[in-house]
């Protein structure tokens, strides 16, 4: 091997980051649903509506930012793993190195 890289570990870490991003996605979905339900069940009340509005414009985008960070890290790890795998393959075929 040209590089000494633990490819399974790279993939596992990428999977973990993606998995945790998924947990945040699901959490945001439940929150969104819960606040919408509250507003529906208490029509005419001020704070359920306020809560729903704030979830839509602040809490959910905020969560999206957290998810985006995890996905960016996951993507970068996968790109790295793929690059190493390609380099190894090329090296094995006598193309690179």
């Amino acid at each position, binding site marked *: 091997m040209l590089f000494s890289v633990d490819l399974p570990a790279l993939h596992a870490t990428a999977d973990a980051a993606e998995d945790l991003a998924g947990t945040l996605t699901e959490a945001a979905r439940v929150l969104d649903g819960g606040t919408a339900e509250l507003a529906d069940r208490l029509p005419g009340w001020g704070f359920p509506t306020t809560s729903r509005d*704030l979830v839509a414009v602040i809490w959910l985008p905020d969560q999206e930012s957290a998810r985006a960070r995890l996905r960016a*890290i996951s993507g970068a790890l996968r790109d790295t793993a793929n690059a190493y795998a390609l380099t190894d393959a090329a090296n094995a075929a006598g193309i690179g190195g």
Partner: protein
Amino acid sequence: MDLARLRDADLAALADAAATWRGFAVRLYEVDDALPARVIGPLAAMTGEATTAAQESLASLRGLLESRAMRAEAMADVFEQVHDGLTPLQRDLRTLLLQADAERLTVGEDGVVTAPEVAPVHHEYTDAIAGILSRAETLEASAVAAVTDITPERIGVVGVVGAHEFNDVRDDAHENGIALDVPRPRDGMSPEEARDWWNGLGLSGQRAFLLAYPEEAGAMDGLPTGVRDEANRWNLRRDIEVGWDRDAAADMLAKLESRDHLPPEKRAYLISYQPPGPNRDPDARIVASIGDPARAANTGIYVPGMTTDLPSFSAPDGGFDRTVAMYNATDKFTDAETAMVFWLGYDPPDAPDLAEPGHLAAGMSDNAANAGTPGLDRFINTLNATHDDSIPSHTTVVAHSYGSTLTGIADSTEDGLAVDDILFVGSPGVEVSDAEDLHVGAEHVWVEAADDDEISYWGNHGTDPAGEDFGANRLLTDTPGHSGYWIEDSISLNNMGAILADHPEKTTRTDPRNEFLGMVVE
């Protein structure tokens, strides 16, 4: 607030909303908890610019998750409080309406009660209903204010890294202690009581307390090792931002983080941290461990000597490296879980100033050792009290230089130390003349003293523990000087490992010294 809205409201929806927010907070805490082991730790094993950037991004993400989770909890509290406030009001209103109906009174949608046969307006009922509706309206208005106030943007921390964000969150938590419902411990709890209190908090309560009171959590005997480590690392990060010895604090954090990618039983834990004062007066207090003492079958407690401080902890071959060396040496002799603790719970004398007459005075005095003994005794008692009962426990103190003086005093006074073995390394004396005077018993007293270790000959704190008269078990050493005992693969270090692993039969012994060589430091 109009009558129909309160009368007909589905208030159970508020309880459900509280549960939704609480669940959201728990998910955020779960992700926050999972990041070190699943992503940050593995990344620590990789190098490169991109990895560093990812690490920074993840550190910031953890702060983000924690602050959001705490606010989500606050939202849950608001909905619970409104539910609890409105429910009795709605019940009272409905009761009034039933009573009015029974009396054949007419209640208008505006809350005005009339009794056409008696009087145009029934003031008693009308006023009661108006009072209920007014209280409900106040509750609703305060809920709107709270829901708006708790939003993340109010604290402006999106994407901000480090202590400033944390401090904002903590200060905010302090100010809103009641609304956030941050649990508080009782005063004067024993370590066992503190452990039970912690276990009863549940995940969200634990996280709220940890985030709101990291200094308290970091110092609370009885809390899990990992929790104290997390709290104390926050405290350390804050010290890196605002403390008196920021570079040394940063070096220490780097040392601890160098083991974050390892499995939990091999990681470094910061069990206690008290930052140094200006000009290192007083020195930092540091208790750090490789491995978790609460789960280890063999636990060593390294008590260092003079001049040990925050910078020397991270220096090459300093406190951290020695602790790791002893951990590794122990691990060679056993498959059981090991923990090696660096205990700087006292303020050792500083380096002597050779230009000053009487420069050795501090090292000659027992003052620092005497002041430190209660802390060592308490720390060991706490370890024993909170150790997992299902795992056997063997505990050894490895005391170096002036640390051996402290340890000797601690084990020869009152009921001694609750340990199985004591190993004195490079000792200038332990303030007793006979190993039998130590509670641990002479057969469990071990000594390493290199032939060219000048300090081990001083005898300024009593009889030479390596001498014949003392009656301890002397172990062979093959390392030079006063600070060489931790050289990798040396007999000196292997002997320490065997004692720490409770395998004294695997040590290499030597005869006690039979003369005082009288070496003097000029």
